[in-house]
């Protein structure tokens, strides 16, 4: 797996450069995603001469930096590229173009076996489905010990670490000798968290970690994730479609639409006064349990367009309530709208558009 071709070296990285949406004045970048594209070829169904007839542009030009100890919420509808982005970041997918740098080293082109192993330790994943992401035939202890074995941790220490980790995620020592089917969904997600944290990674990618859980269980897992994040000072990319959950856990949020980031900024800012019309519509579409939040309803027409035939100009223009002539011709890039809030839109909102009466409440 060690790549022999000469990959771009970490020296090329400019340490002072901040990407759109990155908070100013921070220099503790953990992860840097540079102009990342991931296209999947579509082949014609001929047996002899199958040829590529198009591309699914799942991720189409993403620049992103993750800083130490921050939780970045990644939101967007199905098909917007959230999962492809996260898979490419962990190294499960090769990028079509662009780079993913973890602590300055290219994750897809490690310089040495050691660096490869190091990077694999530093980045971990928590999956959505706690039922399918644990091996049913393995004791919890063995599932948790696996990464320690791979990374040659002293055998004597291994058991200690496993038991310690179980306690940290709110399970007991005796749980180590059980199989996944003996646990509830919430407990399994605790095991998933233990597995991700056991190598003390720098970055965890959590892909919809609570969406398969009931609300009462969801709350305890969210609390636990926050506790652990603080204790380990790990950075996190938190992918979720439930915006209330994202608002609760994340410091920064990036909104994706058709393979691009359309808005990025501090969570409270973005959710309070969204700038991009897509963020506005997304927030407006979410049904809130709070009876006293009065919000404006904006119902988007049509479906998300296919990532094969992208609309020209702004990708969101065909569904946008503000679209003008220009939006159908030119594609907007991320620009700073307010302090640290960046949006890719020619006509961004600058005032509160949806939560009109929420402020009166506070």
């Amino acid at each position, binding site marked *: 797996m060690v790549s022999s071709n000469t990959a771009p070296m970490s020296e090329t990285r400019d340490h002072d450069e901040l990407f759109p949406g990155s908070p100013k004045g921070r220099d503790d970048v953990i992860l840097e995603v540079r102009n990342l594209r991931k296209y999947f070829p579509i082949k014609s169904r001929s047996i002899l001469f199958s040829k590529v007839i198009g591309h699914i542009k799942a991720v189409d030009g993403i620049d992103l930096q993750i800083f130490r100890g921050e939780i970045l919420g990644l939101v967007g*509808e*199905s098909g917007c590229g959230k999962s492809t982005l996260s898979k490419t970041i962990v190294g499960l997918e090769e990028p079509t173009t662009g780079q993913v740098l973890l602590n300055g080293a290219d994750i897809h082109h490690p310089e040495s076996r050691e660096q490869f192993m190091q990077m694999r330790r530093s980045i971990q994943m928590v999956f959505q489905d706690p039922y399918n992401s644990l091996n049913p035939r393995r004791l919890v202890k063995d599932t948790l010990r696996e990464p320690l074995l791979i990374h040659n941790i002293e055998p004597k220490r291994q058991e200690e670490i496993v038991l310690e980790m179980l306690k940290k995620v709110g399970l007991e020592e005796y749980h180590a000798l059980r199989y996944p089917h003996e646990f*509830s969904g*919430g407990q399994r997600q605790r095991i998933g968290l233990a597995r991700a944290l056991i190598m003390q990674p720098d970055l965890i990618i959590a892909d919809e970690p609570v969406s398969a859980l*009931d*609300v*009462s*269980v*969801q*709350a*305890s897992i*969210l*609390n636990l994730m*926050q506790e652990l994040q603080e204790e380990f000072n790990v950075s996190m990319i938190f992918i979720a*479609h439930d*915006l*209330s*959950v994202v*608002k*609760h*856990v994340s410091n920064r949020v990036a909104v994706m639409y058709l393979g691009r980031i359309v808005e990025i900024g501090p969570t409270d800012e973005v*959710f309070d006064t969204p700038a991009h019309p897509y963020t506005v*519509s*997304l927030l*407006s*579409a*979410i*049904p*809130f*349990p*709070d*009876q*006293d*939040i009065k919000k404006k*309803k904006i*119902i*988007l*027409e049509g*479906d*998300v367009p296919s990532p094969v035939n992208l609309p020209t100009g702004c990708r969101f223009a065909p569904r946008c309530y503000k679209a003008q002539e220009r939006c159908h011709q030119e594609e907007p890039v991320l620009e700073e709208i307010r302090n640290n809030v960046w949006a890719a839109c020619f006509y961004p909102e600058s005032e509160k558009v949806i*939560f009109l009466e*929420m402020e009166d*409440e*506070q």
Partner: protein
Amino acid sequence: MSETTLKGKAKHNGSSNVILDVRDIYTYFKTESGVVKALDGVSFDIREQESVGIVGESGCGKTVTSRSILRILPKNGEVVAGEIYYRGVNLMDLTEKQMRHVRGKEIALLFQDPLSALNPVLSIREQMVDVIQLHRGVDEEEAANIAIKMMKAVGIPEAEHRIDDYPHQYSGGMRQRILIARALALRPKLLIADEPTTALDVTIQAQVLDIIQRMRKEYGLSLMLITHNLGVVSENTDRIHVFYGGRVVESGPTRAIFKDPHHPYTIALLESIPSFKKGKGKLATIPGSVPQLINPPKGCRFHPRCPYATDICKTRPPMEKIGEDRYVACFHVDTVIADRKNRLAKSSS
């Protein structure tokens, strides 16, 4: 035909504007590991033109309720006791043949997964026209016209052409629209929507809910909306019934319950969801887990997880009226309400 069936059978005369009156039903499932008491004495009602939410976590009996009403339980399940009155007629007394006139024509069901509810090898035309012909007694051409009209009403563009497409040619949101169109083409009086938007993206969910509400008003439908999403319930229903462990624990107007929940479970449930208004602090959690319905806790199903539980909670609490249209099944409801008031007063001062 079903009209006459219903009239002839109408014995029960409840409150005049109640369309569905579920009275004390018990639905049990036989499984290898024992009898699962999925519904254990469930009572609630739905009024004419009302939108009612059935709320609860997985395994609380929401879906079993809708299947018990329509009598489409799996083979190992059975309604062992109780009555379900639909417009005065006990559905439990009807023959299977009479029941077929109720399903679809009187009470329509909308499923969670719109793809598996459509036959992939038949065009939309075939799937809609047959049903409309059968239930509305019209000829094929008229049925097709009705189908196209309904498809247009739910916002499917170029319905005249798209009716000949197959399910896979539609997106998830469009498929759910087709199902709504098909259900409403039969002019039912009650629509049971079982998690109708759970499989859809939020912007599409908003579209579908908007259509359901518009159609409900246009056709004067009653709606029974089953969902675990408290936001959806909050914005789309007039009244809710909160389910826990196969029973109803609290009923009342949606607004009142969200503002001022009375049952300890409802309170805990509402406090455990992250909200746009709450800060970043810890979320409230409910200790323990959802009860096993093979061997459920005695008495109040919630008592092992409830901070207010005492010995009396090991007997079953009756559903008691505690205000205008509000019912709660809890022995300690007075303490619970007082306690919550104190807490709110403290946090705001």
